């Protein structure tokens, strides 16, 4: 069976403000908190938390991968559906490496200066996201 409709499932990427993507996909790789998940049609029902990372969407056999960065969230997977709830999402191609590197140094400085548990946690979170964005752009890990 090579019919496109048979092998695809409905994929949705939703932010609090609007639906960012709603189209059939053949394969989606979700960056789960405890490891990446490849989702195909007929996946067993699953709820996972998503870490900041890249979601890759393949729409058809042999087609190009679409890469979108999400800053964490949740994914709800069932046989016919895959819905990702993300608070922030941006196409990897739109990320700017220079800007991110500048932000990274800024945040590292901030981390040294802030006091108080809550502020520290906030900066650390921001740092984690920027690092993940950088990894998404350059393709190798930033720690």
């Amino acid at each position, binding site marked *: 069976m090579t019919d496109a409709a048979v092998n695809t499932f409905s994929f949705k990427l939703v932010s*609090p403000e609007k639906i960012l993507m709603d189209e059939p996909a053949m394969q989606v790789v979700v960056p789960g908190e*405890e490891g990446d998940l490849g989702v195909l049609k007929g996946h067993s*029902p699953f709820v*996972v*938390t998503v870490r900041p990372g890249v979601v890759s969407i393949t729409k058809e056999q042999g087609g190009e991968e679409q890469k979108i960065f999400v800053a964490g969230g*949740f994914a709800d997977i069932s046989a016919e559906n895959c*819905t990702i*709830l993300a*608070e922030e999402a941006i196409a990897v191609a739109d990320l700017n490496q220079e800007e991110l590197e500048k932000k990274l140094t800024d945040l590292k400085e901030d981390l040294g200066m802030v006091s108080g548990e809550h502020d520290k946690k*906030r900066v650390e979170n921001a740092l984690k996201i920027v690092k993940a964005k950088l990894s998404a752009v350059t393709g190798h890990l930033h720690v």
Partner: protein
Amino acid sequence: MPSLKDYRDRIASVKSTRKITSAMKMVAASKLKKAQSQAEASQPYATAMAEMLARVAASLPADFAGPKMLVGTGADKTHLLIVVSSDRGLCGGFNGNLARRTRKEILALKEAGKDVKIICAGRKVFDILKLEFSKDIIKTYTGIGQKGRIDFSSAREITDFVLNQFEDGAFDVCTLMYNEFKNVLTQTPSAQQLIPFKMPETASDEAESKAAEAGPVAPYGFEPEESVILGQLLPRNLGVQLFRALLDSAAGEQAARMTAMDNATRNAGDMINDLSIQYNRARQAFITKELIEIISGAEAV
């Protein structure tokens, strides 16, 4: 008795007021449209979040106590009220009604011996509440949605603050007070308890009935385990609820302003009619008086 010129001036002034109010009405109408479409666009996320919460909660083991955000701190001493209003006035009873409802709530809580803390989102309700409860207001947010749309980051800012306060044990119960957008003519001040979170019963019922229709399906898998997911979902859900309230309130504000300005425009029209009649009467009286003077002058000669 006012002179003819006084009447003319008043009519001119009411006419220009009418122009302003009718312009404001049209501006509010277009903003309302925008706010409504934004509220609509945010629906899918909220729905998906509610479904997920229901799903996770349904598969929790029965003996699982749940995180504090779900079951509460065990105390009921300090109440935190988040009051969402608008920054601007001229929108009828929109802010006044909410402030009155909030005041009643605060007084009832204080009567029952609870401590009350208030977070104001929006300047108007702060202006009213500070007269009586200035020492209970711990934080005020203004300028939300100033750029014509409400960003999720505004909701997240408030959420972060509330969560930090909760972690520090600064309050036990958190309630959200906002104007619920029923339709263009009606906005009802309403209260919604956020912490401890009450699972929306209708949502889970729906999910259940849907699941029943679909027949037996494989049980859901969770990664990480249910309790961990729940612990992360609940704070996010707080943000979603708050965001929804902000959007509802923004749409309600514009709707209330539109209605108020429509009324004002109509009233100005009525006033112009009344003033015109008075003006015509006064003019006629003046003419009659002049005629009498001329005639009696002629008779005297």
